[in-house]
């Protein structure tokens, strides 16, 4: 068995200790490399901790405006349909300010792959509430815990998306080796759907934000298992135009 960091991860990443972004960066790099498409891929990278990626990730990239990565990616893909185009976004980016751009990429079934990191808060800006923040979760803008009577329920975007006409939608997690392998498979399926011009593919990944959760990394993974996964069910929701679940 041979394992070596993929070529795209050409230098140490800049995330905090135990941050899930590092694992996801590597998975994306591995998939692109294994599919032999990493040299012809283009990433639209979100504002958020995602924006630390381009410096350490050797794929042609563009820094999208906050929230607009999916629209930026659609612009690229429509011009260069033969390239593999993906976004890399946080939950604040894709679901708060960028809700419309994200959903409309799905509605238009743009032939792009959205990699969406759900760490249930705004990591980069210091841990404010995100649309995905759990009920009663403490963040810097919900210091007494998220009160859903005022903020609404945590947002399950896949629920909103899964009845649209899209190619592939799945949600993975990083809490252990098995989940990481599954998540990698989802990412691969998504890119394959794009290669087959099936349309929009979307991978949500539950990921720890150790710094802002103020949790030890291992505790953070346990928290995901215990508290996050019950709210955001794992699995494949749409595949090759067929809706599962």
């Amino acid at each position, binding site marked *: *068995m*041979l394992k070596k960091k993929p070529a795209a991860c050409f230098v140490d*990443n800049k995330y905090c200790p135990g941050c899930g972004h*590092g694992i996801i960066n590597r998975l994306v790099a591995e998939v692109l490399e294994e599919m032999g498409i990493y040299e012809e891929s283009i990433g639209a990278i979100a504002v958020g901790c995602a924006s630390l990626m381009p410096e350490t990730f050797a794929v042609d990239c563009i820094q999208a405006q906050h929230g607009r990565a999916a629209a930026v990616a659609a612009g690229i893909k429509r011009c260069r349909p033969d390239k593999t185009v993906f976004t890399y976004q946080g939950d604040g980016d894709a679901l708060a300010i960028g809700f419309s751009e994200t959903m409309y990429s799905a509605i238009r079934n743009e032939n792009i792959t959205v990699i969406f990191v759900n760490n249930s808060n705004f990591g980069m800006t210091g841990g404010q509430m995100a649309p995905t923040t759990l009920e009663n979760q403490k963040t810097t803008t919900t210091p007494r815990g998220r009160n859903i009577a005022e903020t609404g329920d945590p947002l399950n975007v896949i629920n909103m998306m899964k009845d649209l006409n899209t190619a592939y939608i799945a949600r993975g997690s990083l809490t252990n*080796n098995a989940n990481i392998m599954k998540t990698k498979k989802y990412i691969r399926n998504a890119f394959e759907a794009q290669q087959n011009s099936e349309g929009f593919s979307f991978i949500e990944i539950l990921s720890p934000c*150790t710094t802002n959760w103020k949790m030890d*990394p291992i505790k953070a993974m346990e928290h995901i298992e215990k508290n996050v996964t019950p709210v955001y069910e794992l699995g494949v929701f749409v595949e090759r135009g067929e809706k599962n679940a």
Partner: protein
Amino acid sequence: MEKLIIHKESCKSCRYCIENCPKGALYIKGDINEKGYPYVSVDHEKCTTCGICYNVCPDYVFEIQEREV
């Protein structure tokens, strides 16, 4: 050449690998790398090169190769 290589300068001491290693082959000695983290070490005797540590590590620390023949 070792079958499991640890790029210790990349380690940020999150302990995911230690938690997930099925063989208990990984541990933290206490030495600190340039980034300031007490990095991970391996007990080569215990390691089966299963690759799990590689998989769970966010920081590209592990590399698994066959032993030189």
